[in-house]
């Protein structure tokens, strides 16, 4: 199954019954899968008139307390940033999938990791964070759908799955988690009725829920932003995820790579192993919150080089440097324009460190 289809199927199994999006390559299989499957499960599929409208439909549906998703690829995600900022500001749970392609501008339709800054460091205006999950296989892409909805609901915060054209288009076997029953979906749909747009079932005279990010009184807005940052501190404490691969005290080089790029680095590490060269890999799975401490811990006693590989010009590199704090030199190599590096190229770069 293609990654784009797998994440769509997994979202439906996670109880997502509302999906609003606009067609863009290389995520078209996702919107097409939703168009085909949502009517079969009594859900809503709506092809919006624009990316902007789609994300605002998500705002409306999330404001009504229901599991809702949108997806797009890089240029479309740029258009959604206004709505993402409002969703974060109004503290609404929603899931956004970005199947990245090469940029800037229209760029191309090949895989890239060039939207790291946009996803992790901001994107829209104002002080806020997305929770950002980065899969590196079709299986993980699918698994992240349910994780993303759970995290979004738990923290009332938008969650982005930052994938790319390679994971979206690639076919791999997938095992799905069991689909939520209608009863479970109904329960999920009513979990937010304390604050969301919903019928005033018991006629409570005080029932007046507001979905809003506007606050003109600076002291009240300050309180709200501080409250969001207290929430983010909890996320940073509880939700950091990463994978270590071949990390040991024998490592002479420690690699850091995420998403598709990490798979290629793994292949190179396996080849180097045969030559008796010990290289470890740490793969951030949550890009925000970022595994700063895990990177520090993974730097073994013999490590003389930290090497960052990305399909961009060095974006996550900044976070690696923040983590490493000059303990060891940090090097970077990447490919851009939608060109994916090969294991042999990575192997060559790593061999030069020995």
């Amino acid at each position, binding site marked *: 199954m293609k990654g784009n289809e797998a994440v769509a199927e997994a979202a439906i199994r996670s109880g997502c019954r509302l999906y609003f999006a606009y067609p863009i390559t290389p995520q078209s299989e996702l919107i097409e899968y939703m168009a085909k499957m949502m009517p079969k499960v009594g859900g809503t599929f709506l092809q919006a008139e624009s990316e*902007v*409208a789609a994300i605002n439909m998500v*705002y409306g549906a999330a404001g009504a307390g229901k599991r809702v998703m949108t997806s797009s690829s890089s240029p479309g995600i740029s258009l959604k940033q206004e709505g993402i900022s409002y969703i974060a500001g109004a503290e609404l749970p929603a899931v956004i999938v970005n199947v990245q392609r090469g940029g800037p501008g229209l760029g191309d339709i090949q895989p890239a990791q060039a939207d790291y800054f946009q996803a992790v460091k901001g994107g829209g205006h104002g002080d806020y964070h997305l929770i950002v999950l980065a899969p590196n296989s079709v299986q993980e892409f699918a698994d992240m759908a349910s994780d993303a909805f759970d995290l979004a609901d738990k923290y009332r915060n938008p969650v982005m799955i930052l994938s790319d054209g390679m994971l979206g288009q690639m076919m791999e076997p997938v095992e799905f988690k069991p689909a939520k029953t209608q009863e479970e979906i109904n329960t999920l749909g009513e979990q937010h009725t304390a604050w969301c747009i919903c019928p005033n079932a018991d006629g409570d005279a005080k029932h007046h829920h507001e979905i809003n990010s506007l606050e003109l009184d600076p002291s009240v807005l300050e309180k709200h932003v501080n409250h969001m940052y207290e929430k983010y501190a909890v996320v940073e404490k509880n939700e950091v995820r990463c994978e270590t691969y071949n990390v040991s005290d024998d490592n002479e080089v420690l690699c850091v790579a995420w998403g598709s790029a990490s798979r290629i680095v793994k292949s190179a590490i396996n080849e180097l192993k045969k030559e008796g060269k010990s290289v470890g890999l740490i793969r951030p799975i949550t890009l925000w919150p970022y595994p700063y401490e895990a990177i520090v811990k993974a730097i073994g006693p013999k490590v003389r080089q930290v090497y960052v590989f990305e399909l961009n010009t060095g974006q996550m590199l900044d976070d690696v440097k923040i983590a490493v704090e000059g303990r060891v030199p940090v090097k970077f190599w990447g490919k851009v324009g939608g060109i994916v590096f090969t294991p042999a190229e990575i192997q060559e770069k790593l061999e030069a460190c020995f």
Partner: protein
Amino acid sequence: MEVIARRPETLTKTPFTYCPGCLHGVAHRLIAEAIEENGLINQMAGVAPVGCSVFAYKFFNFDMAEAAHGRAPAVATGMKRARPDMHVFTYQGDGDLAAIGTAEIVHAANRGEKLSVFFVNNAIYGMTGGQMAPTTLPDMKTTTSPYGRNVEDIGYPIRMCELLSTLVAPYYVERVSLLSPAEIIKAKKAVGKAIQYNRENRGFTFIEFVSTCPTNWGIDPVKSRDWARENMLPFFKVGCFRDKGEENVQGVEK
């Protein structure tokens, strides 16, 4: 004691923040009364725009969402699709609806979303301080058309009722004015019909109010109504453009 006038339950006790002589309060009240009369207070949700009525979420006494500029019809679409048992309306000004949100209103109307849209047209941007709106009249002076709206340069005002009635899906489209008690009574009927159709989930309903902006027009409230009558009504003609619930109305699909 007999009560002959009171605040509808559908309005909160929060005082309106509008300028003296502004007609937003009248429009709010008409909508609030219609919702109360249709018994919808516990199933209603509104979407406020960016503009003078940005705080409408504080004034209506049921669930409200505040949308980004122009996006209210998309937000309302998401809300209604997520909770079909709710009844949803948007309240939008001319800059919000006919400029930055043109795509959203046209496509929500074209999909026949089961929403009511209340559109306040006073030919100017109010909250930002009197800039040119898509509905600003030819030669009308605003802070961004200081020599008058030059239609050769920036085009003519957009007539939204006429534009939306070219679409097949909208169920009810009417333009009313708020310039005198008699016109307000007519407007009340139109608003009542829109909310009734909304309650019955019939389809997309659109009411445009021809209104005033004494503050940014620089004309006192009474004279501003005369000005609107002389200048706006000839261009923005009141009337029903579409009513699929009644026969013999222009645009009815047979």
